[in-house]
């Protein structure tokens, strides 16, 4: 029932996405564009070649990031972690920029450097958090480590971009996190990774639930805790990287969705996972609508909209955490 409601909300968001923009297109024309495409009709061309492509990218990236966030929050039992707050986004971004600068890579080949960057950033974050151990709240330390690593990698990114500003003009939007009209090309290359990751997340979901009860409990119940922990982490990073390669470092979908899912569906079972998947897609679709409508005719970057909303949510979470409430 709740999953159905979520799907309906997503469908409504998609319809809104196709309708609104620099020019509003009525629902009838959208339907016609899909069923009886007419290449001479301008509205049809806009719907099919500009909006549906964007929509597909938004739905994919949102879904993938939402699930990645849920996995991370579950295995770390920490409501402040997410692909962006752990520095994974920033690491993947800066390795992509490095690969573009030094090797001139492009398209699907960028997945590997992005993955390396994501893994490297994650490892560095854990190391930093360990260095910080012993002062303050250990969960905050992990996020603080992530923030440091994130800052480090984004300075590296800025540095590399500054070495060749003209060469990166096309990437500037991507660096903030943006859905462009041609992103569907890289989407088709990244989708297999994303979908494989999602299947992995579904399969692992029961194990992760057991792990969330505590390492020892899970071990008693016959779970190979190390394997599950590592596997979930890897899946989360692959999911994140498959989205980052397409749209750039869009933050906070993965931070916010698990909290919403927990409010609606509790902690265990597959329902929270589906909610994160559908909800993430909905959030990013709506953010893309806002990005195009908020200051029309100028188009904002989706990363900007998510930063505005997500920063506020992150602040609220940190403050709640500080009050001692469990999040």
């Amino acid at each position, binding site marked *: 029932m709740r999953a159905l409601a979520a799907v309906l909300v997503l469908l409504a968001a998609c319809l809104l996405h196709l309708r609104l923009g620099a020019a509003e297109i009525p629902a009838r024309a959208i339907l016609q564009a899909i069923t009886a495409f007419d290449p001479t009709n301008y509205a049809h061309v806009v719907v099919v070649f500009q909006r549906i492509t964007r929509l597909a990218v938004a739905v994919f990236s949102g879904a993938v990031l939402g699930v990645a966030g849920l996995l991370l929050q579950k295995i770390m039992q920490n409501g*402040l972690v997410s692909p962006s707050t752990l520095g994974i986004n920033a690491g993947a971004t800066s390795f992509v920029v490095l690969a573009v600068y030094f090797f001139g890579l492009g398209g699907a080949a960028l997945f590997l450097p992005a993955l390396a960057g994501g893994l490297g950033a994650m490892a560095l974050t854990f190391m*930093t958090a360990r*260095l*910080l*151990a*012993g*002062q*303050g*709240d250990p969960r*905050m*330390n992990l*996020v*603080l480590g992530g*923030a*440091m690593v994130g*800052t*480090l990698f984004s*300075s*590296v990114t*800025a*540095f590399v971009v*500054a*070495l*060749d500003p003209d060469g990166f003009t096309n990437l500037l939007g991507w660096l*903030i996190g943006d859905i462009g009209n041609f992103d569907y090309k890289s989407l088709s290359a990244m989708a297999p990774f994303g979908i494989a990751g999602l299947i992995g997340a579904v399969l692992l979901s029961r194990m992760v639930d057991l792990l969330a009860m505590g390492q020892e409990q899970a071990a008693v119940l016959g779970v190979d805790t190390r394997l599950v922990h590592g596997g979930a982490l890897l899946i989360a990073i692959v999911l994140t990287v498959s989205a980052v390669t397409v749209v750039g470092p869009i*933050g906070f979908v993965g931070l916010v969705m698990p909290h919403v899912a927990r409010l609606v569906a509790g902690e265990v079972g597959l329902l929270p996972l589906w909610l994160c998947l559908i909800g993430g897609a909905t959030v990013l679709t709506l953010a893309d609508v806002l990005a195009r409508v908020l*200051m029309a005719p*100028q*188009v*904002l*970057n989706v*990363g*900007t*909209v998510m*930063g*505005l909303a*997500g*920063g*506020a949510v*992150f*602040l609220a979470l*940190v*403050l709640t955490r*500080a*009050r001692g409430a469990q999040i």
Partner: protein
Amino acid sequence: MTLTLRMGRISLPISLRFVIAAPLLLLALIASAYLALGVGSSVTAPADVLAAILSPREALSPGARAIADFRLPRVQVAIMAGAMMAASGYLLQVVSRNGLADPGILGLSDGATVAVMLVTFLYGPIAVGQLGLVSLVGAVATAGLVLGLGRRLLTGGGIILVGLSINIVLGAVVEMILVSGTSAQFAQIMTWSRGTLGTADGPDAAMMARWFCLLMPVLLLGSRMLHPLLLGEEAAMALGLPARAVLVAGVLLAAAFAAPVIAVCGPIGFIGLMSAWIARGIVGERPTEVVLIAMPVGAGILLWADTLGRVLFSPITVSAGIMVSVVGALSFILVARTGRRSRASS
């Protein structure tokens, strides 16, 4: 080891390390400035550098005139900006009782940036003198917001996370302003919003010098009051210090030090963090000494970052803000690490 300076009824304890380190740092800074004046994209004779500093502008050869017109103000701005960011960072560290605080990390820089960008965007270019005031308003407002929200989270990383989340929101606002401007404005504001000394000229240097002369006496007179604060607010109050008032004054002073820097160079992060950390390593904890050491250290860091950014990848100029932040982010991690060590040993 501590020496005591007595002048009539006033006695000032000064550590031996300070007496040794301060003149050495100043000498190193002067030498660096001389070096920085001599290098750049156009080759100049060493004699020109001296001439540019000592002789009046009319009597200069073309090479020396180029130094006096372009490099001299840039070096002056670098030195003052570095020193002022260092002072601002140290004050924030004392006030927030967190060694990781810095105008960039606590969001003051971004607040000032947003204020300056908004005003420039709405009213067009305005005089650099007024820009300093605008940026002060932005910095003070953000400092108030961050420290107000985070006052219960001072120890550990809480306040830093509050600052970072405010940073994220303000960063998004900056991007929105960038997108709504023309593309020429975009390019100009984009470089500035990363922190650069490329646009520094004579009037900028003069404006910063005015702020510097105005704020230094306040800092020197007030820094003694910071010492009890290191023990915590309650202990400071028990010693008869109006802790709340000093805290507020400290935040205001920190914002005032950062404001003109941001108005001229844009947000340059991590200098406060790095220089205060180095200064504490040299002279220990006494606030007046730490801040007086931190200022030349910060000036040196920014001067070297700017000069290296100009020369290293020539003909490309990497702006000082970016140069500093790569090194700065690494030292952020180092500082956190030593923070843990000192806590473990105490």
